[in-house]
């Protein structure tokens, strides 16, 4: 029984090595051909951005978000899907789902430099607000903050909201 098991294990390891080699080749080939991931045309590649402090935009609490909202110097960016945005969003917020970042980034660069961009998504359970802000930061836009409490906290604090017609 031990000998058969050893034979099967050796076979399994050989098969696993074959699969690993093919997967590695396919992975790098696909990335190179589609210019994604490590061969991404963005520099640095978006996947190298993490939420380390100091490297990325600041996270703000609800009080500061409210203050910036009231002062009129902020543009809130809702990074959720369109149907979530339409159902309800921070008053005056624009909807740019994370997946549309590349398509819409140019429009953001046209915004006046004195405006603070504040990203948010549902709340602490989602990270699209962080990733969106990191990507903004990497394109050279530094006046970015992240309202991590997001839609949930804004709504439960009964702050100004609105909905959109489809």
């Amino acid at each position, binding site marked *: 029984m031990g000998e058969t098991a050893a034979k099967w294990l050796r*076979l399994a390891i050989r098969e696993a090595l*074959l699969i690993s080699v093919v997967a590695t080749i396919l*992975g790098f080939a696909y990335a190179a051909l589609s210019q994604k991931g490590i061969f991404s045309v963005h520099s640095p590649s*978006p*996947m190298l951005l993490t*939420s380390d402090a100091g490297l990325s935009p600041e996270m703000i609490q609800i009080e500061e978000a409210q203050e910036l909202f009231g002062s009129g110097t902020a543009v809130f960016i809702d990074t959720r899907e369109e149907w979530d945005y339409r159902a309800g969003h921070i008053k005056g917020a624009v909807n740019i789902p994370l997946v549309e970042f590349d398509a819409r980034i140019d429009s953001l660069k046209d915004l006046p430099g004195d405006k603070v961009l504040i990203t948010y998504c549902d709340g602490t359970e*989602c*990270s699209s607000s962080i990733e969106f802000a990191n990507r903004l930061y990497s394109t050279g836009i530094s006046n970015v903050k992240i309202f991590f409490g997001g839609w949930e906290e804004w709504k439960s604090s009964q702050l100004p909201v609105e909905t959109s017609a489809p």
Partner: protein
Amino acid sequence: MEVQSASCGNVRAMKTLIRNRYFILALRVLLGLAFVVGSLEKIVDPDAFGFSISNYRIFPAFIIPVPATILPWMELLCGLSILFGVLLRGSSLMVATMLVVFTLAVLSAMLRGLDITCGCFTNDPAAAAIGWGKVAENTGLLCTSLLLLYSGEGPLSLEHYLRRRTGEGTALPM
């Protein structure tokens, strides 16, 4: 006496079940599809998957592109291999290893209090966060992969079919 024969009966029943070709096929479809479907979104968007990996705070940033590029393809190939029953023991071994590593990563993130999305089946940042549910799910998949590692691909498989066509010996020309 009675207890002894009952437990022997249970073990025998289990062994019969594992050798049942339809049971093996069912396990292969379950595990194979899970990995094929889970890999697709990560293949299409390696940047987002790289971000999911970075959330776990395990790797230094510069190394993340490597697993982000290779891992989804490993999952896809293993999933297909398990589904069709080719190189089954190799892919089951890889899947078992990956699941152990993933589960340890999830547990480690939970211990450090990281409230992050799993990045298991989808890159969507709004998807389910990590937690004991994920651990249970991974453990179930791990058990399935270990059962398949033990049982082999069974007769309802591509490898068995090829073996019958070309004569005895494994499909692997090594």
